[in-house]
């Protein structure tokens, strides 16, 4: 029996010092219930929260979220897979429904990151690398992606200009997304002239830490039509892992977990990369989007730079990517990101994306990477 999405909700991403984490979670949850027809909160059997607990002052998040959104005494729990926690929660929801354990499951991805200083976040995120042999030298998240970027440049001739073009594209679309942190366009010159973070990565090559929440509600094929005329179905769900330590990875020019997860998702959905109408990929850094084009098979290995240069990832190009602005423009509230990606693909497949609509979108893909590639979830959805 198929599993599909009947309701979506998305809160404003950005600096949300106006709200607590549970207040953030409430916004998209309410919207997602209203987004489904005739769904009542009491119809929902379980609430899964996707989040990274270390960023919050509040401990044990599902407890406070379930109470605040009014889900007690229903089942609730947390899933964590670093920046892919939201997609991990969705996978858990899918499994819960597929197994018959639950009929209707809500997933809230939520994160409030701006309770911490940038230095503290850099230290926390740096420790997503191996702390025994790497973090002791002051590695950072941008630093890890910089190591990928430098090697990608060396092996394939990828340039800083090509990286900058990813930021230009994502801000171009982000300017049309009312939920995005940054709703304005940037020029290539602005990106290239922005401050150094970890060479060759500049500030404008990085996504921003943000607060925010998103929600999707899933159910089985039997119930879906009751709550939505156009349920969006999960056709393929890929999930894979890779070494925690970059020192044990086969190379630094690709994310092996992304390649493996994509392979699983394509084969399960019985589609090819060229069948994808629209994709939301994990552009935590501009080089990450370039590697995503390659790892998802939208272009050959090493040709990711060329792919953006030729505008193949714009609407009208071969495969439109991150036409909601991506992490780059939306901001990256880590636990919310995978759920946010999923809401965008649902909108695109329903034909509700407005100015950013990819016309006739039939098959969508989400690619959510956790950490520096330790976890990747790739989902393929169809209308």
């Amino acid at each position, binding site marked *: 029996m198929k599993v599909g999405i009947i309701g979506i909700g998305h809160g404003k991403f950005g600096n949300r010092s106006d709200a607590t984490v549970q207040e953030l979670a409430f916004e998209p949850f309410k919207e997602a219930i209203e987004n489904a027809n005739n769904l009542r909160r009491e119809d929902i059997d379980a609430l899964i929260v996707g989040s990274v607990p270390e960023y919050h002052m509040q401990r044990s998040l599902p407890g406070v979220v379930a109470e605040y959104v009014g889900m007690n005494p229903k089942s609730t729990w947390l899933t964590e897979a670093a920046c892919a926690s939201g997609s991990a929660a969705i996978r858990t929801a899918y499994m819960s429904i597929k197994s018959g354990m639950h009929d209707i499951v809500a997933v809230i991805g939520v994160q409030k990151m701006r309770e911490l200083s940038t*230095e503290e976040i850099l230290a926390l995120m740096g420790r997503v690398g191996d702390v025994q042999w790497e973090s*002791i030298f*002051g*590695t950072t998240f941008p630093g890890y992606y910089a190591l*990928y970027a430098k090697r990608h440049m*060396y092996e394939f001739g990828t340039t800083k200009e090509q990286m900058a073009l990813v930021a230009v594209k994502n801000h171009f679309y982000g300017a049309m997304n009312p939920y995005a942190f940054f709703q304005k366009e940037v020029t290539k010159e602005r990106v290239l002239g922005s401050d150094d973070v*970890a060479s060759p990565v500049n500030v404008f090559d990085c996504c921003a830490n943000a607060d925010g929440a998103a929600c999707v509600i899933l159910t089985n094929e039997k119930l879906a039509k009751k709550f939505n005329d156009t349920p969006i179905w999960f056709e393929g769900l890929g999930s894979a892992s890779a070494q925690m330590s970059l*020192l044990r990875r086969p190379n630094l020019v690709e994310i092996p977990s992304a390649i493996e997860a994509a392979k699983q998702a394509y084969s399960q959905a019985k589609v090819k990369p060229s069948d994808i109408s629209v994709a939301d990929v994990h552009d935590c850094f501009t080089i990450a989007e370039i590697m995503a084009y390659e790892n998802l098979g939208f272009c050959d290995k090493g040709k990711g730079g060329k792919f953006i240069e030729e505008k193949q990832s714009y609407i009208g190009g071969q495969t439109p990517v991150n036409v909601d602005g991506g992490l780059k423009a939306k901001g990256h509230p880590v636990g919310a990101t995978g759920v946010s990606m999923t809401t965008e693909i649902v909108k695109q497949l329903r034909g509700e994306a407005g100015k950013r609509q990819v016309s006739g979108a039939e098959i969508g893909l989400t690619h959510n990477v956790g950490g520096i590639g330790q976890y990747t979830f790739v989902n393929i959805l169809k209308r």
Partner: protein
Amino acid sequence: MPFKYFGKINFTPYTKVDKFSDYLQKGKLMGTKCKICGELYFPPRADCLKCMSDTFQWIEFSGRGKLHSFTKIYAAPKGFEDIAPYTLGVVDLEEGGRLISWIGDIPENDLKINMKVKVVPRMFEEIPEIKLYYTIEKQ
């Protein structure tokens, strides 16, 4: 010298491979070798990834290798602000395995991917709590 002295900030004072820091203090860069299947490891591992044996021996690595990638860190995490900006390099070691560390005395303009380098054991002697580390130098 206890493993807690390895690195500017050490997050893992207890490990089955804590002899690493004793050797490093003596100027030796050591990896491990699985006693059953002979697989070599750097960073050291107490338990073999390949055959799952939990018996290993220490093997001295030459420190020679090639620079795999590098980056200059401007935005430093907490505890490293005082030494920023600093350049990190990833080295493919001659015997196999990889390490990450600071680039030592190689001028920025001379840094090139694939250049031959040597990893040199060091101590932070200028601070009271002596800490062990290693740097990447020209071969």
